[in-house]
């Protein structure tokens, strides 16, 4: 399952065109959609504004349900951006996958790559830990994270923090990766003679359509879960639970 990649070195760091292009495309979609939907916002919303307001209300609802007012306000923008980006990333690969002649998939769901989901998870956990420190102070934060409810649970708590990171990132990755993998398998087995040349857009056939529909659903759910879990971690690390 190690597909070819197109890595390059820059300033001693390793980059990978597939991930970068996919991420950029997803972000471009997010930006364009929000710019188009939010043009000239008014107190009495129009049709387009209603759509993005629904989205914002949705993420604000997730946040408000878990956090106190002050933290919710701080976390709102992050939750909104995260949900929007993850949803677009999850669904992007269902509609569009571009493969180069060298066999490298340049455009796919960014979240089908463990690097992207792990990075997102690291970021979310950094936000959660940061907000914990901000709220409880460094000492209180450490005590709340490691010695609660009993100090002898310290090892368990350390494992829990590691597990948080892994479950958060690998859940998203696994769902999206598996969905796309199955999509590709179905497409390959349906494409006769089973060999793909040049840039190929994966066309939808009945099975493919059913699985795409299901993956669409999964993508939405996983984005929701990702944001919810981030909120849960913030609440936990801020001692709200």
């Amino acid at each position, binding site marked *: *399952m*190690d*597909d070819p*990649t197109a*890595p390059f*070195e*820059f*300033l001693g*760091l*390793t*980059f*990978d065109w*597939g*991930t*970068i292009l996919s*991420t*950029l495309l997803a*972000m471009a979609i*997010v*930006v364009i959609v*929000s*710019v188009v*939907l*939010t043009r000239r*916002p*008014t*107190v009495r*919303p129009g049709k387009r*504004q209603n759509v*993005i*307001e629904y989205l*914002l209300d949705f993420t604000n609802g997730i946040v408000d349900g878990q956090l106190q007012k002050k933290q919710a306000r701080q976390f*709102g*923008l*992050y939750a*909104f*951006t995260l949900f*929007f*980006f993850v949803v677009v990333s999850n669904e992007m690969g269902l509609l569009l996958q571009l493969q180069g002649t060298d066999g490298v*998939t340049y455009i*796919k769901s*960014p979240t*089908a*790559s*463990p*690097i*992207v989901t*792990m*990075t*997102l998870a*690291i*970021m979310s956990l950094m936000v959660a830990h940061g907000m914990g420190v901000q709220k409880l102070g460094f000492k209180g934060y450490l005590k709340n994270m490691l010695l609660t409810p009993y100090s002898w649970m310290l090892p368990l708590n350390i494992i829990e923090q590691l597990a948080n990171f892994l479950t958060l990132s690998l859940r998203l990755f696994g769902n999206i990766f598996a969905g796309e993998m199955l999509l590709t398998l179905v497409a390959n087995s349906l494409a006769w003679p089973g060999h793909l040349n040049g840039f190929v857009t994966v066309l939808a056939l009945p099975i493919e359509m059913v699985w795409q529909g299901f993956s669409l659903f999964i993508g939405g759910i996983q984005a929701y879960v990702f944001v919810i879990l981030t909120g849960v971690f913030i609440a936990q690390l801020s001692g709200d639970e």
Partner: protein
Amino acid sequence: MFGLTTLAANKLPLGNMLFIIISFLLLMLILKKVAYGPLTKVLDERADKISADIDGAELARQDAEKLAVQRQSELADTRQQATKVVADAKASAQKQSDSLISTASDRATLINKQAQTDAEKLKEDAISNAKNDVAALSVAIASKLMQKELSLNDQQALIDAYISDLETK
């Protein structure tokens, strides 16, 4: 695609991670500028407006109720006043007509009385005149008789003269 095995075996693509984090932060900034900021502002404005509108509606309702009560009492006052005015007008009209009637009847009585006294006076005058006349006549007759009693002729002449005297009178 980076499988997990690649991750474990090869070097970690740190560049990718940095790229994702930095671009995500940029995305957050851009979204704050184009969507989250304006939308949150608009949502807050709407919430404020709605609560202000609700307060305003409550105030307006109270005002309206107050006004309605005031109007009601004013209306009752006005009705009372109107009744009073009508009653006053009726009473004053009655009074005026009574006084007119009484004046008229007084004057009528007066005129009547005057007429009666006038008539009585006339009558008395006439009677006294007649009395005077009769007395004068009697005196005249008596004097005539005394002057001319010698003869029948004289008498006759006297009577004639008297009669002619009467006629001329």
